[in-house]
C-alpha cells in the first residue's frame, strides 16, 4: 500500500501512456487480420495478406504519395516564409509588431473548421478550382504560425554577439548568414520543419474542405470509414509508426555515440 502511494505518479503516468499507445497496438494487430466483411473492426484470423500486397487497394498508394508530396512542399513553403518572419520578429524593431504577432497567433487560436470554411468561401468567391494547389496554399497557411513559433524560440536564445563576431571577422552579410546564423538556428528550423511536415501530412479538416476531388491519404481513410476499411490502411499506419520510431531511436544512438567520442 505504501509502495503504491509513493509511486502514485509513476503508476498514473504509465496508465496514461498505455491509453496513448493502445490504439497503435490495435492498429498493428489488425494489420494481420483477415476480416470477413468490408470493415476491419473485429478480429477474425491471422493473415499476412495485407503485408504482402500493401498497394493492393485501389487509389490508396496514390493518395499516400500525394500526401507525402503535399507535406514536402508545404514544409518548404512554411519553413522559408516562417523563418523569415521569425528572424524579423526577434532581430529587428519595426512598426505594427503587435498586429503582426496577433496575425501569427490567431491561426493557432482558431478552430480548424473555421479556417477551413472561410478559405473555401474565398476560393469559391474567386472562382478558383479546388485541387492540389488550394490544399497546398491552405497547408502552408496553417503550418506557418507553428514554424514561426519554433524558429523564434531558437533565434531568441541565440547570442546576437555570434553574428557580430562573424561580421567582425570579415564575413559579409551573406557569409554571416550562411556560416553562422543558419547553422546555429538549424535545430529550431528543423523542429519547425518536422512539425510542419507532420501537421500537413496528417491534416484532415482543412483538406476536407478545400481539396475538391483530390484525395490525400487522410481523406482516403475518411472515405474508407464510410465505404469499408481495407487492412492495408493498418499496414501503412503500422509501417510508418515503426519506421518513425526506428529513425528516432537510431538518431538517439548516434548522438549518444557522438557525445561519448567527443568527451573521450
Amino acid at each position, binding site marked *: 500500500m505504501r509502495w503504491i502511494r509513493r509511486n502514485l505518479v509513476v503508476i498514473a503516468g504509465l496508465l496514461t501512456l498505455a491509453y496513448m499507445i493502445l490504439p497503435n497496438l490495435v492498429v498493428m494487430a489488425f494489420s494481420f487480420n483477415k476480416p470477413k466483411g468490408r470493415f476491419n473492426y473485429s478480429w477474425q484470423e491471422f493473415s499476412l495478406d495485407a503485408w504482402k500486397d500493401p498497394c493492393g487497394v485501389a487509389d490508396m498508394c496514390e493518395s499516400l504519395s500525394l500526401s507525402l508530396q503535399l507535406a514536402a512542399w508545404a514544409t518548404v513553403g512554411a519553413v522559408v516564409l516562417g523563418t523569415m518572419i521569425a528572424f524579423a520578429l526577434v532581430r529587428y524593431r519595426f512598426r505594427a509588431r503587435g498586429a503582426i504577432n496577433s496575425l501569427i497567433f490567431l491561426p493557432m487560436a482558431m478552430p480548424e473548421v473555421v479556417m477551413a470554411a472561410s478559405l473555401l468561401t474565398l476560393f469559391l468567391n474567386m472562382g478558383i478550382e479546388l485541387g492540389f494547389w488550394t490544399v497546398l496554399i491552405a497547408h502552408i497557411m496553417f503550418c506557418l504560425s507553428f514554424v514561426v513559433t519554433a524558429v523564434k524560440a531558437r533565434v531568441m536564445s541565440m547570442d546576437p554577439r555570434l553574428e557580430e*563576431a562573424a561580421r*567582425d*571577422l*570579415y564575413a559579409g552579410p551573406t557569409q554571416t548568414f550562411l556560416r553562422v546564423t543558419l547553422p546555429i538556428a538549424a535545430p529550431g528550423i528543423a523542429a519547425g520543419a518536422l512539425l510542419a511536415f507532420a501537421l500537413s501530412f496528417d491534416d484532415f479538416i482543412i483538406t476536407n474542405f478545400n481539396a475538391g476531388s483530390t484525395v490525400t491519404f487522410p481523406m482516403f481513410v475518411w472515405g474508407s470509414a464510410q465505404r469499408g476499411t481495407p487492412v492495408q490502411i493498418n499496414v501503412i499506419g503500422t509501417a510508418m509508426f515503426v519506421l518513425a520510431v526506428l529513425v528516432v531511436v537510431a538518431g538517439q544512438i548516434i548522438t549518444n555515440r557522438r557525445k561519448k567520442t567527443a568527451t573521450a
Partner: protein
Amino acid sequence: MTDKTAHTGKTTGGGDVRLTGISKSYGSFTAVHPLDLTVPQGSFFALLGASGCGKTTTLRMIAGLEDPSTGTVFLGDKDVTDLPPYKRPVNTVFQSYALFPHMDITENIAFGLRRRGIKSVKKQVDDMLELVQLGDKARHKPHQLSGGQQQRVAVARALINHPQVLLLDEPLGALDLKLRRQMQLELKRIQTEVGITFVHVTHDQEEAMTMADQVAVMNGGRVEQLGAPADLYENPQTTFVANFLGTSNLIEAEVLETGPTSADVLVTAGGGKLRVPGDRCTSAVRQGGKVLVGVRPEKISLAHADDAGSIADGRNRVTGRIADSSFIGVSTQYVVNSPAGAELQVYEQNIERDARLRPGAEVVLHWNPAHTFGLDAAQDIDAGVETVEDAG
C-alpha cells in the same frame, strides 16, 4: 572642442585610433556624449567605467558594430566611420567570447582568414594555437573548454588577422579572480609580443591599472579623465575618479588663506587646519571658498593620541576615534571618525603593530601635505563610490 581636435590632429601617427566628436544616442537617451579620443599606435589603452557609462558603446563604434550618431572614426589617416565591421582592419574579443558553438577551435580561429579568401591557414592557425598555448585542443568544440581556454581562443581568433587594433570588451569578466589575474599578465605578454594596439574595456579599476599604458575613465557617457594609471591615481581631477580608482578620503574644507606664493593653500575642516599644495588643486581657490581635500588611505599614518607630541612638524593632522579595524594580512584597515569627516579610511602596513590601536581609541591621523589634493567642491562627494546595490 575644435582646439582639442586640432591638437590631436598634429600628433597623429600612422596607426592611431582617433575619435572626433563621436556620440551615440538611442532616442532621447544619450549613451555617449560627443567625445574626442586618440589611442596611440601600439599602446595598451583601457576604457574604464561602471556599467552603462558608455565604454562598450564607444568600443562598438570603433569596431563598426554600432553606427555613431555624430562624429568620425579614424584609423590612422583613414576615415572608417561608414565602413561595415567586416571591412575594418579591427577585430574584437567579445564579452563571453562569442565562439561559434558549431565549429571546432581550429575552424573558429581560421574563420577570419577564410573569409578573406586565404586558403592555406594551417600554419598560421598552428602558430596562433602555440601563442595562446592551446595546441592540444585544436579539434575540440568550444563548450569542451574551460572559461580561461575559451578566452584564449577568442583572443587567438581575433589576433590571427593581424588587426591594426584589437578591441577587448570585458574579456576577463566571466573568469574567477585568480584566473583573471593570470590572464591579465597573459594578455599583457601577448600585447608586448605582437605590438598591436589594444583597446580594453573594463569595469575593474585594478585590471585597467595593471594592464594599460593609458586609461580613460568614463562616467555617464563622458570621459572624466585620461592619463597613465599612476597619474590618474595620484592626481584625480574629479571626485568620481578619486573614488572609482581605489579609495579616497574626501574632506569638505573652507579656504583660510591662499599664501603669498600660492604654492600652499591653508584650509580648515572640522576645527583643524590642513595644507594643500596649490598646484594640486583642480579649481581656482579663493579665500573663504569651499574645497574638497583628498588624501589616499595608504598615505596616512596613525598615531595613538598619547603619542601626538612625537609627530613631526609640518604634517597635516586630523584627530579622531577608531570606529572599526580589520586585519587583512599585508595591512590593517582602520575606519576613523573625526570632526573633519566621518569614516575616514586608513591603511597601515603591518610592520610594527601598535596594540593600543583598537576600536574606541583616540588617534591622530597625520600625513605629508604634499600627498594632499584639492577638488572642486561643487561636485557630488560620493560620485563613483561603490555601494552594495552597485555590486549586486
